[in-house]
Every structure is written in structure tokens, then in C-alpha cells.
């Protein structure tokens, strides 16, 4: 069980996470939902140790969480200049020699003998996913994994995530698209105002969808009414 307890973090004087708490079970996909700027990426960066937390604790099975127990796929993955796709994967599988680079690459057919920096956004994302699989870590963090990926690869991503879930991984995933999250996740935490407002279980997803829609609609209606009257 991944336990995120009262995490506070930010940049300079700006505190973005004001006490985030949630739990994620092994063999589940836990979605993080929030509007742009709500702090999803900040949360993931803090979990992965990129950003020092100002308060709170992170534990996996009641022991402090180490960055080496996590894999993190960024929204815009970055490798290293002048490095080939295959080299990147070779470096990442250093502790997992069972990982067969060519066999896994048959799913995406990436040109692994080319420089990673020449890859398109979607190809870089696929390479990042292959790298993440090469590491074989218990906690997987995916920040907007589907953005910039074509339809076929989107399906492949989802299928791989389901397999990882069956494999007992703890997966945290963010998306701007509610439908994507409700389709793939087992539970969704709503991040707003720097805290998790509520965690919704699968059977509560319809109520989450109606809550989001009603919130957006009521606010938008009021704004549009005002603007159209002014016009």
C-alpha cells in the first residue's frame, strides 16, 4: 500500500500542495484528476523526489518510500542528447537483465538505433514507457501518459497498464480527460486547491462525472450569462 500523508510542496513562496493525502493499493490504477495548474505534476514530482516536500510522509508498505521504488513518466519525456533509443533502454534495464528490449519493442516498432532526440513526441513517450517497463518497479507514476500518442498506441498503452495492474503494480496516473480516467482507473482522487477533495471508487465514477459537469456548467453558465448580457 502506498500511503501519501499530508504532503506539502511548492516553488519558492508559492505553496501548491497544501496537505495532499491519499492511499493507493497494489494492483490498482489510481487516477489524479484536476484542472490545469491544480498541482498534478507538482504532486508527481514531489512523490518521485524531484521536488523536496515541505511536510508530510510517503511510505510503501509502511516503510519510507525510496525513489528507486518508483518509475516516473513525464508529460514530455526527456532522454539525453545524442543517445540512441536502445542505449537508453540498456541503461535502464541495468538491474533487470530479464527485460528483452527487442521483444518489448515489437509492440511499438521504435527505431531504437536512431537518436532519441530525433523521435516525435509520441515516439519519445513510447520509449519512456519501454524504459519504465525495463525498470520493473513497484510504483509507476504516469503524468498525462496518453497526450501526444496516436490512437493505436493509446490502446496499446491502456492494455499494458492493465497488465501492469494485474502484475500487482501501484499505478498513479493523471489526465485532463475525465473519460480517460474513468475508463482505466479503479479509483480517482480529485485534486483541487492544493488538497485531495475526495477519492472516488469505481462505483462512484458516475457521481464524479455529474459533479464535474455540474460544477463546470454552473460556473460557465453564470459567466456566459454575464458576458452575453454585457454584449
Amino acid at each position, binding site marked *: 500500500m502506498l500511503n501519501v500523508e499530508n504532503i506539502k510542496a511548492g516553488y519558492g513562496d508559492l505553496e501548491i500542495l497544501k496537505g495532499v493525502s491519499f492511499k493507493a493499493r497494489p494492483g490498482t490504477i489510481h487516477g489524479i484528476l484536476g484542472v490545469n495548474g491544480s498541482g498534478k505534476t507538482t504532486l508527481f*514530482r*514531489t*512523490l*518521485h*523526489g*524531484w*521536488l523536496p*516536500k515541505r511536510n508530510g510522509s*510517503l511510505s510503501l508498505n509502511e516503510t*519510507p*518510500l*525510496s*525513489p*528507486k521504488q518508483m*518509475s*516516473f513518466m513525464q508529460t514530455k*519525456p*526527456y*532522454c*539525453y*542528447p*545524442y*543517445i540512441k533509443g536502445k*542505449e*537508453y533502454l*540498456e*541503461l*535502464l534495464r*541495468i*538491474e533487470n537483465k530479464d527485460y528483452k528490449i527487442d521483444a518489448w519493442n515489437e509492440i511499438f516498432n521504435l527505431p531504437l538505433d*536512431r*537518436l532519441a532526440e*530525433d523521435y516525435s513526441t509520441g515516439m519519445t513517450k513510447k520509449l519512456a514507457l519501454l*524504459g519504465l517497463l525495463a*525498470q520493473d518497479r513497484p510504483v509507476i507514476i504516469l503524468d498525462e501518459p496518453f497526450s501526444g500518442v496516436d490512437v493505436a498506441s493509446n490502446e496499446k498503452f491502456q492494455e499494458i497498464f492493465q497488465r501492469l495492474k494485474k502484475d500487482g503494480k501501484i499505478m498513479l496516473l493523471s489526465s485532463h480527460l475525465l473519460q480517460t480516467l474513468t475508463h482505466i482507473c479503479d479509483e480517482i482522487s480529485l485534486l483541487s486547491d492544493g488538497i485531495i477533495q475526495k477519492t472516488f471508487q469505481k462505483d462512484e465514477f458516475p457521481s464524479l462525472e455529474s459533479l464535474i459537469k455540474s460544477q463546470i456548467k454552473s460556473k460557465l453558465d453564470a459567466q456566459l450569462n454575464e458576458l452575453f448580457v454585457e454584449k
Partner: protein
Amino acid sequence: MRATASVGWILLLIGLPLIVILSLGIFAASEEGWHISLIFAAIVYGIHFSRNDRQHLISIGYEPRLVFLAEYLCLALLLGGINFLLVGNYLNLLVMLAIGLLGGISPQANLNQVKDKLFFPVNWIPYQCFEWRAGLRKNGWLVIMLLIPGLFFAHRSPAVTLVAIILINFISTSWYKDFETYELFIRYRQESLVLREKIGWQLVLSFLFMLPLAIFFLINFLSLWYILLVVIIFSFAINVFSICYKYAGYHPSRKRTESDLAVGIFSLCMFVPFFAPITLVYLTIYFFRAKKNIRIQYAEC
């Protein structure tokens, strides 16, 4: 500013002008023939094929070729002119002017298009030395351009080989200005392995590249072995500093070191007798800073 402050203003304000004067003086006063100009050629063409300011010059209304030509000719005139004035050697001046002229008018290859084809063979380098693999793809041809005169003209002057060794090491230190991803950074079993492995491989590989030059140097100028030893030790120190500097400032959210100027200043100051001991103090400081930062980055979340 922070980078220069971190390596010490004293090195920058006093060391750098001293180095420039000393280097120019030694270089320009050389009575050697045109082979010294080959080193100049390596520098000019190295700059020419690496510079990224073409588009910027066009955008501000300058013809890049004219600017390049003017810059290279000025450099040739400065060095070749001083050489001519001091030792009356007009040959170097003419060769340098020709090199500058050729550099200015030769087309700049689009490295993005041709870098796949220009790859230096790197498959023999272990994967964990990805900085070397990436660096040799980027600057491998420049290393070859230094190795060739360093080897072929080693019998003419000790300076040629020594300058080639120093420049190859300068190039290899520049490969440590890019940060790897956090995933690559934390792939070691223990944090203590990061510096140990990086420094170890860096010394092995840089020594491999220095070895043929060193052998040729010793064959021709055995009596000057102590100068070669000093150059190799200084080169190792520069290599170690570039790694320590990188990891002292490593952060997963950044892609590059603050500035490669710091390593440049450190490297140049190593070759000034008065500053060499001071730079060794900086090396020690940065070694411990790097160790501390790696420990922080590897710490539990």
C-alpha cells in the same frame, strides 16, 4: 554569474587574463613551422561546425558568412600577426589567414541532418559511459582532427602533442554539461557508486585517447617526460572537476549545468603555476559538494 562566483572571482579576474596573455604569448612566439597552424585549424573548424548562431545573425540582419569570415580572420591576424612580429615567421600568418578564409567561406553542415552519418564508432564504449558515446557522436570528428596532427607532427614539436592532449580533454569535459534524467541518475544500486564509476570510466577513457599521443611524445621527446606527466595529471584533474561540478549542481528538473564557463575557467587556471594549487582546493570542495548532492538526490522521498 552564479557559476563564475562558485569557482571564485579571483580566478576569473586575475587568472583568466593571465592565461590569455600567457597562452597567446607562448602560441604566438612559437618558432615552429606551419604545423602549429593545424591546431589553429582544429580550433577554427571546431568552432565553425559547432556554432548555432547562424539563424540569430540572419534574424538581426547580418550575413553569417561575412561575420564568420571577419571573426576567423581577426583571430588569424591576432595570433599569426603576433607570431610574425615576434619571430618574423610569416608562414604561420599566411597559413592561419588561409585557414580563417576557408573557415569563413565553407558551408556550415547542418549537424541535425548529418549527425547520424558522422557518428564516431562508439559501440566499444560501455553503455554506462553514455556521456562519451553521446559526446563522441557530437564532437568525435573534432577529436580526430586533434589526434591526426598530434600524432603525425609529434616529431616536429612537443607542443603539438601536448596541445592536442589538452584540447581533447577540454572537449571531453564539455560532455558533462548535460544532465541525465532522474531515472538514469538513480539507476545505481548505491549512491557511492555514482562518482566512483563516473570518475573511474572517465579517467580510463580519457587515458585511452591520450595514450597514442603520449607514446608518440615519449618516442620523440623522452627527456621531456615530466612535462607530459604534468599535462596528464592536470587533464585528469580537469576531468574529475567536470564530473564533480556536474553532480554538485545536478537536479532532476534541470537539463544542463548552470554554465560550462566554470569548468573552462578551472581548466585554464590549472595551467597557471600560481593557480594550480588553488584549483586543487576547488576540486576537493566540489568533490564533497557532489557527494552531498548525490546523497540528497538518492535520499528517501
